[in-house]
């Protein structure tokens, strides 16, 4: 039993520090906070405390998840109490990107296919819902149908893209997907009659469930955006669980086998094409669901929101968090949404510091924040062999 209490203490301390960090408004103390955090973590790792805490959490998993859920529930209440609904909005946005990063992780992390046009599926989700509501503004309950329907649509488009491009490998596949992302954006820009062109579609309504409208406050003084917060938490959890289940299923093993050696996998009887296509479709579906929530959250979509930079950003989240690691990717997405918001205090130096932080990560922690065990092992082995850390997979240069 005391072990459970230790777990709760660990989670609550972490949560309290997160709240504290978000509430530091001055630029310099925040930077100090982050540096102190990095230093502290290094010290903990050196002292072997991280390992111990990890084993503890593993033993008390139920308590761990229960206390995490409690924190997620408390989060909007705390920021309402602090009169800072801004951070609830940022958390919601982070949730959207968690969905996207989890989806891209299936393609890049699990199967090892570099997809540089992933934003296309996000755009398809967001635009499908926007176009639907533009024509049927009253049918707000349809949001719940749109969620699976656009996922299916994006999945099918993912299959089409995959079936035509999967005979390419590595860099060549990356270039084709990059092209696909651009084609999607250009179609959105030019198909005026359907997408309203560069002007975008505005006035996308919030969903309604059993007469409960997302445009109203959910009570307890919570702002409207808290509705979306809870929705995206549920969706992200569902997607995370689905990704985890898939990863540990036969399909997940097949993905891993293909990532390591497609030829060997095929010789063992795995249908490489079908399994790769499945990964594309699953990833596309996750992104589309994120897109549907995004369009209702922001209430406006335009083609400029779905540029290549967005694809690159989502890829950064996957790489920063740790390719193939679900908790890693979740943390990666949260960090890359929260950090630029937090760095607003630096004004025009914002993107400079952001870029520097990413470069530092690549130097000091190339395997990502929370690497999958397998990749960590790989990097260590490569380091042993050649003396320098190698990072050849996937080819990013």
């Amino acid at each position, binding site marked *: 039993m005391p072990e459970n209490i230790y777990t709760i203490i660990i989670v609550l301390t*972490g949560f309290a520090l997160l709240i504290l960090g978000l509430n*530091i408004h001055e630029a310099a*103390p925040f930077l100090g*906070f982050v540096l*102190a*955090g990095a230093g502290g973590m290094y010290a903990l790792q050196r002292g072997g405390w*991280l390992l111990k805490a990890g084993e503890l959490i*593993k033993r008390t998993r139920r308590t761990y998840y229960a206390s995490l859920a409690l924190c997620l529930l408390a989060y909007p209440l705390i920021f309402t109490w602090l009169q800072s609904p801004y951070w609830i909005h940022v958390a919601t946005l982070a949730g959207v990107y968690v969905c996207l990063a989890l989806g891209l992780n299936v393609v890049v992390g699990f199967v090892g296919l570099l997809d540089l046009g992933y934003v296309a599926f996000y755009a398809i989700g967001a635009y499908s819902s926007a176009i639907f509501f533009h024509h049927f503004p009253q049918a707000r309950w349809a949001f719940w149908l749109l969620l699976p329907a656009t996922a299916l649509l994006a999945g099918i488009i993912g299959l089409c893209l995959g079936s035509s491009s999967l005979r390419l490998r590595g860099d060549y596949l990356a270039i084709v997907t990059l092209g696909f992302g651009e084609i999607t954006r250009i179609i959105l820009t*030019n198909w005026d009659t359907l997408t309203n062109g560069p002007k975008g579609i505005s006035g996308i309504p919030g969903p309604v469930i059993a007469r409960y409208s997302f445009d109203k406050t959910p009570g307890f003084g919570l702002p409207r955006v808290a509705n979306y917060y809870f929705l995206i938490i549920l969706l992200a959890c569902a997607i995370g669980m689905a990704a985890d289940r898939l990863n540990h299923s036969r399909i997940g093993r097949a993905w891993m086998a293909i990532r390591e050696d497609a030829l060997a996998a095929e010789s063992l009887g795995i249908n490489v094409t079908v399994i790769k296509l499945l990964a594309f479709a699953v990833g596309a579906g996750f992104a589309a669901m994120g897109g549907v929530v995004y369009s209702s959250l922001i209430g406006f979509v335009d083609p*400029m929101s779905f540029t290549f930079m967005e694809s690159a950003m989502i890829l950064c989240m996957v790489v920063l968090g740790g390719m193939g690691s679900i908790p890693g990717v979740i943390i990666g997405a949260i960090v890359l949404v929260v950090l630029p918001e937090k760095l607003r205090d630096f004004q025009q130096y914002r993107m400079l510091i952001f870029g520097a932080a990413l470069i530092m990560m690549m130097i000091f922690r190339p395997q990502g924040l929370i690497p999958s065990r397998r990749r960590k092992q790989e990097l260590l082995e490569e380091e042993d062999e050649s003396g320098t850390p190698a990072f050849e997979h996937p080819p990013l240069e």
Partner: protein
Amino acid sequence: MNNLKRYLALISISGVLACQSGGGAKQEEKVFKLGAVLPLTGPAAAPGNEMNNAVLLAVDEWNSSNKLSGYKVTLDSKDDAADPKQAVSSAHALMSDSLVAAVVAHLNSGCFLPASRIYHENGVAAMSGATTNPEITQQGYPEIFRLCTTDLVQGELTVPYLKEAGYTKIAIIHDKTQYGQGLAQVVKDACPKSGIEVLSFDGINVGDKDFKAILTKIKDQTPDVIYFGGMYDEAGLIVKQMRDLGMTQQFVSDDGAFGQDTIDAGGVATEGAMFTMVGKPLTEMPQVAEFLTKYEKRFGVKVQNYGPYAYDVANILLTAISKVISRIGGVDKAAIVQELKQMEYDGVVGHTAFDEKGDTKNKVITIYRVQEGKFVPLKTMGM
């Protein structure tokens, strides 16, 4: 799961070393904030920073003027990077601060459209000096104001002028952006009414450098005037390449291309090109010269385009706030909105009052022609 613990440990330790941040107790000072959300980085950073500087200038003047009944105002600028998503985040960030009394809102229509709802929900007045998409004020939010005329006004006033000048066949080019295409569409729709024939309506991409293909096509259609809806870089290059191809037609463009940058990009080819800009010519208004000198003295650069608008937006908002303060002795957001509705203000860009939608009643544009590398006003028209 081995991994999760690291993150937990990271955040656990980090806080211990950062305890200095426990925010000091709030003092009962008489302060409020003027928010500003403008593109300080990204593709629209140049006009965004100019507007931000102009707002800063206004804020400093009010602070040193003593007209705020003992109150001090600070400027809280947020960056929207011309991105709708960041605009909404920034709007939320400002609205989370109860000291923010009013907001100098966005440069881009695509940013103001989604963000306006956030201002509306919080009952905070937001006024933009540059967003021209008509949809923004059609949403019916009483907190939303706009100082510049919409694309509708600019487009619809441009066309009769072209007719009057004797042009009958027009070729329209736009840059496929919300702004450029939106304005080009208004011009296109207004042409039949004035009896001008629209020969073509083509889009180019922002960032393109070579427009000769599209211009050659247009050349064969023999229009007598070419209209471009877009921004300065492309406008300058298009007019340059027109002249290179031997096309002597009149080139007309919009307020997005009204700036020294167009002349810099196009060189001597821009001679004779015409541009529309919202408002009266700045040279006709004595207050403008004063503002331009002040701006140049403070920031060391010349005002290019929307600086005067941002300056007026800030001054109008602060005037409303100061009236509210002197009337009820405090900053009340709803009272500020009411005050703005009946505001009559004579500023740098002329006389401002707002209609029931929140748009300015000062619906005036001026046509300029480039002569010897300078914009010379030809005619001022109103609705």
